[in-house]
C-alpha cells in the first residue's frame, strides 16, 4: 500500500531524514517510534505530500505522491502533529468543509459526518466553535477529519497527545478497529501506546530506521543484553573474584549496596545464557550470601532507549555504510548543487 524508498530530507545542513526505506502492506497498523526530533513528523509530512523530499520517493497505493499528487492524496487521511483546524468554524462546519476538500459526494458526507462525530465522541460539540474547544476535543476533531471518506491509508501523527486516559483507550480501540480494513500509520514517542495497537514497530532515530519488527520480535533482535541484578553480602574483592570466574559475563558494574556490608552488581549477559545457578554456587563456595538476584529480560522500553540513544560501536559502522551511499548519490539529486558550490 505504501512504499517509501531511500527518502532523504535535508534542511540546510541538518539531515532530518536519512535514507529511509520501508513498505507497509494493506490492513496493517504500523507504529513510528522515536524520540522528539527523530524525523517522524518530517517523514509523515513527506508521505502525505506536504513537503517534498530532497531525494527518494513515496508511493501510496501505486501513485507517486509528487507525480500524481491528487490520486495519491485521495487515498490518505492525515492528522498532522498540530490538528489543522480553523478557529472560526464550528466542528460540523469544519467537517463539511473537509469533506468538500476531499471531494466526498455530498450525500455520502451527510451520513458519514454524524457517524464519525459519534465514533470520535464529538457529537455534543458539533455546534461549538473550534476556538472554544479543549485540546482533547480538538485532537478528536482532527482525527474525525482524517477519517473522513474512510481512506485506505490513515496517517496519524501523535494521535494520543492531549487525550485523557479514558479517551486514549477509546481512540486506541478505534485505531485497532480501523486496522482491520485500513492501513494505519501512527507515530508516538511513547512506547506503550505504540506496542498496544501496532502490528509492526519502526524505531527511528536521527532520521534513520534503526529497527523494524513486530513488538514480539523486537526483543529477539537484541542479543547479549539481558541484565542480572545481584546483591551479595560479602567484600568487594570476593565478589569480583566470583564474577571474574564466570566467562559468560560480558560486563558488570559494582556499587555499594543500600544494605549494610553488601554490594550490588549489575551484570550483562547474552540472552541465551542463564547464569543464575552458576552464580548461586559460585557465591555459596565463597560463603557469600545472595540477598537478591533478579533477571530482567530486555523490555521494549530498554530496546527503545538503547536504539535511540545509540550504541556508539554499532552506529559507527552503520554511518560509514550510509556515507558511502550518500557520496554515490551526490551526482543525480540535490548533490549536484552542492558540488557546484564547492
Amino acid at each position: 500500500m505504501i512504499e517509501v524508498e531511500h527518502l532523504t530530507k535535508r534542511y540546510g545542513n541538518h539531515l532530518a531524514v536519512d535514507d529511509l526505506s520501508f513498505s507497509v502492506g494493506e490492513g496493517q497498523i504500523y507504529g513510528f517510534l522515536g524520540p522528539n526530533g527523530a524525523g517522524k513528523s518530517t517523514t509523515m509530512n513527506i508521505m502525505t505530500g506536504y513537503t517534498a523530499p530532497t531525494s527518494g520517493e513515496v508511493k501510496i497505493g501505486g501513485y507517486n505522491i509528487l507525480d500524481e499528487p491528487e490520486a495519491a492524496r485521495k487515498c490518505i487521511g492525515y492528522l498532522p502533529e498540530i490538528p489543522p483546524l480553523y478557529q472560526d468554524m464550528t466542528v460540523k462546519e469544519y467537517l463539511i468543509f473537509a469533506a468538500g476538500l476531499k471531494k466526498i459526494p455530498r450525500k455520502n458526507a451527510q451520513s458519514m459526518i454524524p457517524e464519525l462525530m459519534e465514533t470520535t465522541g464529538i457529537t455534543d460539540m458539533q455546534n461549538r466553535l473550534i476556538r472554544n474547544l479543549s485540546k482533547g476535543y480538538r485532537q478528536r476533531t482532527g482525527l474525525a477529519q482524517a477519517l473522513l471518506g474512510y481512506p485506505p491509508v490513515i496517517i496519524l501523527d501523535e494521535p494520543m497527545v492531549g487525550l485523557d486516559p479514558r479517551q486514549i483507550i477509546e481512540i486506541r480501540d478505534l485505531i485497532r478497529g480501523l486496522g482491520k480494513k485500513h492501513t494505519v500509520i501512527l507515530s508516538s514517542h511513547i512506547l506503550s501506546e505504540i506496542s498496544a495497537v501496532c502490528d509492526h514497530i519502526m524505531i527511528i532515530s536521527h532520521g534513520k530506521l534503526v529497527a523494524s519488527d513486530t513488538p514480539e520480535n523486537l526483543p529477539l533482535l537484541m542479543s547479549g543484553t539481558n541484565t542480572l541484578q545481584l546483591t551479595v553480602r560479602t567484600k568487594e574483592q570476593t565478589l569480583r573474584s566470583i564474577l571474574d570466574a564466570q566467562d559468560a559475563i560480558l560486563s558488570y558494574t559494582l556499587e555499594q549496596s543500600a544494605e549494610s556490608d553488601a554490594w550490588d552488581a549489575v551484570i550483562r549477559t547474552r540472552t541465551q545464557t542463564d547464569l543464575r545457578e552458576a552464580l548461586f554456587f559460585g557465591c555459596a563456595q565463597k560463603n557469600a550470601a545472595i540477598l537478591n538476584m533478579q533477571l530482567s529480560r530486555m523490555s521494549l522500553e530498554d530496546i527503545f532507549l538503547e536504539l535511540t540513544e545509540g550504541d556508539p560501536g554499532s552506529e559507527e559502522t552503520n554511518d560509514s555504510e550510509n556515507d558511502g551511499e550518500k557520496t554515490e548519490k551526490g551526482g543525480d539529486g540535490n548533490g549536484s548543487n552542492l558540488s557546484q558550490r564547492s
Partner: protein
Amino acid sequence: MAAIYRREVKSFLNSMTGYLFIAFILAVTGIYFTAYHLRGGYPSFSYTLEAIVVIFLLAVPVLTMRILAEERRQKTDQLLLTSPVSVTGIVAGKYLALVTILLIPILVMAAYPLILAQFGSISFPEAYTALAGLFLLACSFLAIGLYLSSTTENQVIAAVLTFLVLFLCYIMNGIAEFFPETASASFFALAAAAAAAALLLYYMTAHPAVSAAGFLLAEGALTALFFLRPSVYEGLIQKILGVFAITERFSEFASGIFDLSGVIYYLSIIVICLFLTVQSIQKRRWS
C-alpha cells in the same frame, strides 16, 4: 476549489474583516458622492471613483493580509496541501472569494449613477466604464495582496508589504519624473539594474561564473545598443516604470474610454500574481 471558496466567503462574512472592508469603502464613496455630485453637482460619477482609489490602497491589505499568511501560522495549510486539491485550485478558490467580497461594494456603487440620473441626464456608459475600470484595478490589487500574503506567515507584515507595494505603484509616475529623460540617464539606470540583477543571480545560485557571464553579456548588449541606436534609450526609464503604474491605466477608464489594452494589462497582472502565488506555495514544499 469550491469548498475553499465557500469557506473563505463565509469566513469573511462571519468576521469583522469583510464588513470592515465593505463598510469602509462604501462610507468613503458616500462621502465623495455627496460632496462631488449631490452638493457639487458634477454629472460624472468617475470623479468619485478616481478619488476612492486611495481608499483601496488601505482597504485591500486589510482584506488580503489574512488569506494565506494565517493558513501557514495556524498550520491549516497542512490540511489544504495534503487534500486532493491542486495548489492552483486552492489559490483560485481564495482569489475568487476575495473578488466576491469586492463585488459587494462595487454592486452597491453601481446604484449611484441611477441615483444621479434622477437629477439630470448623465452618461451611463461613461459611468459604468469607469466602474468596470475600478473593479479591474481593485482585482489586480487583490491579486498583489494575495501573492504577498503567501510570502509570509505574519499578517501584519503581509498587510504592510501590500500597502507599500500598492502605494509605490500609485506614485510610480511621480517617481518616474525624478529621472531625466535623456538616453544616457536611461543607459546608466539600466546598467545599474543589470549589475543588481547579476548580484541577485549570484546570491541565489552561488555560481560566480554564470553570474559574471550574465553580467558581462547584459552590460555588453546595453553598451552596444547605446552606441548603435541611442534613440531607443530616450525616456526608457519612464516607459519601464510606467508598466508598474497600475493606477495610471484606470484614468483611461475614468475618462469613459473602455481601453481594451488596459483590460489585458490588468488581467495580465492578475494572472502573473496568481501564478507567483502558486509558485510561492509550491516552493515552500521544497525548502
